[in-house]
């Protein structure tokens, strides 16, 4: 009986530690963010969508070789004719392509990528280099 009463008293004592925190939680603002009803808070260095400066791209294929998710594909015919294709659904947004590129062509933005049901966005041609046209780029 004594042990049970002492347990009861001790549990009342622990109220002294948790109860003030409960009170503090009542008067402060909730911690939750209202995404997606409010825009997301994106920090500066966030690793988002991959973009390219098409004029700098030489078609060397370093980014393709280093991509861990096989999201980049290089279709090469000869030195001046190549196509660099990006598959956003395979991309892991790691940024290894940006590190590997020695010409500073491909880079990573901090654009937050949302899901979409538009299948046309599954294959993105980043660079379409042909000798007649000077590096047209379409997305």
């Amino acid at each position: 009986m004594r042990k049970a009463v002492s347990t009861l008293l001790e549990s009342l004592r622990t109220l002294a530690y948790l109860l003030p925190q409960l009170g503090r939680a009542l008067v402060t603002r909730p911690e939750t963010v209202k995404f997606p009803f409010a825009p997301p808070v994106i920090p500066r260095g966030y690793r988002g969508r991959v973009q390219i400066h098409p004029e700098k791209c030489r078609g060397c294929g370093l980014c393709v070789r280093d991509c861990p998710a096989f999201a980049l594909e290089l279709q090469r015919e000869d030195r001046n004719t190549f196509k660099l294709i990006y598959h956003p659904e395979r991309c892991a947004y790691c940024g290894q392509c940006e590190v590997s590129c020695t010409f500073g062509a491909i880079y990573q933005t901090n654009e937050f990528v949302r899901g979409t049901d538009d299948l046309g966005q599954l294959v993105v041609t980043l660079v379409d280099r042909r000798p007649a046209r000077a590096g047209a780029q379409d997305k």
Partner: protein
Amino acid sequence: MNALIKLLIFPGFGFLFIAALAFDWIDRRMIARYHGRVGPPWYQPLADFVKLLAKEDIVPEGTHGLAAAALPIVSLTAVLTASLYIPVGGIVGASFEGDLIVVLFLLTLPALAYFLAGWISVGAYSVLGGHRSLLQYFSYEVPFLMAVTCPAILAGSWSIAEIINSQAQTAWSALMQPLGFILALIGLIGKLKRDPLDIPKAKSEVVAGPLTDFSGRKLALWHLTMNMQTVLGIFLLVNLFFGGSRLFDRVPALPVFGMKSVAILLALSTASALYARLRIDQLMDLGWRVLAPLALIQILATLWIGG
């Protein structure tokens, strides 16, 4: 006609339905604020109810089909019948000498139905949960009943309306018998299977306890029964310990009653946020070694002082 209104609208089924959903919302919102979250919007309990009604009703093979269909209806019926005798803001469906006993009896039927729901089910979680709910029942029911009879002893009557009236003459039972009130509150937490005494339906141990295999309409009725039990339990405590709806004679009855009920609900929510779940053997320890003797002391004190 008057009786029909009292049965179906106020303080009967219609009012209880709205009150059950409202109390559920207040409880979830309060606990969310304690956690630092926002909590669900006001229509969430209603949305949950409607969603469950629309879902497919599956009864696993091996479960007793008739019993699975009958049990939620039986427990809901018991709760609604008990609501006839509990005054809400002074208005009561029917009142007679001894209606407190009838109410207490009717409010224990859902616990039995809960255990049976586990017993007839096939899954291991349900059986284990039903097992535990019966053990829990034995631990909290005795102190709860003893604590609830103290105001009756003080008032000298077994009718809830009489108890309210006698409190108007003396003082609130909670002030005269604080120990009894605390014990009744703890007993109510066990009866409603709320945190920290939600052992039969502990999510991390027995998934959902006896209700694991229920879905669809049956589950909607079970949840409604639980919520209505919450409402009725709180109303009962307000009537017995806080003098019903009497504050001052000029203040309207129903808002006063509502405020007292919400105050008790907030106390229950705070208890939910504060404590960890007890183990079933710890609960039995607590119930029989601490709560029951204290309730006995309270009854003896009441008899000695009051008689």
